[in-house]
């Protein structure tokens, strides 16, 4: 059991927690936060598995580095969409199935 595997295992657990967090709460802000936790889990798995033999692998590290910045941008886009929804409907929740056109 190397440090890399501990990171990757924690990443997998974080990812599963994020999945539950996206599905369970109805508030959009909490869903976005949970989505970020999923992303962090995926990054940890990538970096952790990359160095499970003991030496760090620069390829997944470079991928994760850009991935983090992209995740920030995607979060900002999601927040902007959530704000717009809130301004249009006054709610921070997705409308129930029946009300959608």
């Amino acid at each position, binding site marked *: 059991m190397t440090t890399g*595997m501990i990171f*990757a*295992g924690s990443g*997998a*657990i974080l*990812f*599963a*927690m994020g*999945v*539950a967090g996206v*599905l*369970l709460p109805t508030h959009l802000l909490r869903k976005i936060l949970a989505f970020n936790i999923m992303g962090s889990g995926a990054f940890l*798995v990538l970096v952790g*598995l990359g160095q499970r*033999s003991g*030496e*760090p*692998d*620069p*390829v997944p*590290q*470079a*991928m994760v*580095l*850009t*991935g*983090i*910045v*992209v995740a*920030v*941008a*995607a979060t*900002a*886009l999601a*927040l*902007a*969409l959530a*704000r*717009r929804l809130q*301004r249009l409907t006054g709610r921070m929740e997705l409308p129930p199935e029946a009300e959608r056109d």
Partner: protein
Amino acid sequence: MKRIAGAAVMLSAGILAMALVVSMFELPPPAVRLPQMVQEKLPQSGVEHPVTAVLLNFRGYDTLLEVAVLLLALLGMLAGERPRPAAPDRAPTDPVLPGLTRFLVPLMGLTAVYLLWAGAHRPGGAFQAAAVLAAAAVLLHLTDLLPAWTSLRLRLRTGLAGGLLVFITVAAWLLGEGRLLQYPVAHAGSLILFIEVALTISLGLILAGLFLFLPDDDERRR
């Protein structure tokens, strides 16, 4: 009903976590030894740090597309939200925060330049430098020293898209010489630095824009 659904989701998430962890321990060792390949080719990459070499040379097209994704995210945000009209002046906040910010922001600029330069031989590079620059801009905005961006002037547009345009121009120019983003070994270092400088400015502006374009007090104005 809702409680049962919640319990089912929790249980499935637990099973998913278990399955993921177990399958990771079952993984066979990687067939390709990437770290060695990177080490072997490092002298040809033009930089001394393996992560920067992967980021801007060996997998340059990945980075190129990721910069495009960042710009798209900002454009998508602006498509939904018109940049806000100028907000009314807020009452001056407590004097300590602006004072500290005035002291910190030049240091953050210096740190960004150092990170950009350090990327060639140690951890650092355009993405980290851009994040520090964007943080400085957000800090300035939060202390009312930098007003929110209300319009997309040509200069700002050029700054936002410049990094991607420089990257694409270099890629297209190299396409004529050989393959996409295959730098000539003699000029690889300076080309990478050139792209990184452009990327730092653009990414810093894009990341700051994600915060500075968002209306913060439209609720009060309506």
